[in-house]
């Protein structure tokens, strides 16, 4: 994917986002309600810059190194790649480290 030698991942994400944008717009326009009868609401994300760019970049480094983001990690474990359990365990550790050092990090 990151070598721009295959369209596959871009096709997957592109298709999902295109359908997603249309669907979310329709939900908002027609104020569609959910199963419980409540209006489906979307919460704007906290306005910031550094945390998204820096956090995203660190995530991207890990994504390209391990080959998986959190969802595919567990899918791989189910598929039989038990070594992904090491990756997943360290993802949990990484999450903890973020929580622990959070106040000291730029936002």
């Amino acid at each position, binding site marked *: 994917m990151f070598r721009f030698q295959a369209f596959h991942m871009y096709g997957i994400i592109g298709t999902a986002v295109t359908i997603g944008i249309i669907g979310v717009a329709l939900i908002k326009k027609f104020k569609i309600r959910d199963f419980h009868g409540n209006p489906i609401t979307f919460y704007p994300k906290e306005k910031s810059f550094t945390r998204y760019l820096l956090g995203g970049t660190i995530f991207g480094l890990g994504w390209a190194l391990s080959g998986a983001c959190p969802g595919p990690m567990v899918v791989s474990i189910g598929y039989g790649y038990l070594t992904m359990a090491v990756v997943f365990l360290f993802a949990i550790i990484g*999450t903890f480290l973020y929580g622990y050092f959070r106040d000291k990090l730029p936002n």
Partner: protein
Amino acid sequence: MNEVITETWSWWFSGIMIASIMFFLLYFGQSFGFSSNLRTICAAAGLGKKAKLFDFNWKTQIWNLVFLIGAVIGGFIAKQFLSTDIPVQISNETIADLAKLGIGAPTSLQPRELFSFDAILSVKGFLVLAMGGLMVGFGSRYAGGCTSGHAISGLSDLQLPSLIAVIGFFIGGLAMTFFILPLIF
């Protein structure tokens, strides 16, 4: 018919499925964001005592842990019933690039050099797995989401913070692929 199910599913089908998952979750009053499970697991492990981020009622997030378990089961079903011995389809250029890094052409879904059991037993192999996982975990919490939360859900809602996060994902991914992987392998 059997071949259609067992061959790699087309990108547009996967994309439709992913968007459907997002809408399915929205319909039941939730949202599609997988990395918060990592935070929930930390909270369930009692790490709320060590860091405020994990000090919340994690039981409200059990629905997402169920989603996680479903994903594991999905992987199992895919392997047992839906897969064949056809290896993952990557381009010839990628195969050539990977060969320069010492990784052989695909024989299955994941490269054996990185994900076979032997990988854990070498220091370098273990560190690749551990550091990769560490950065995914740290980065996703720092950015407040991973590809499902930001690239799929966030971009669908036209959230600018999500676009910044996705740009970050790519900066990191490209930096690792073109600058760092060649140094490691």
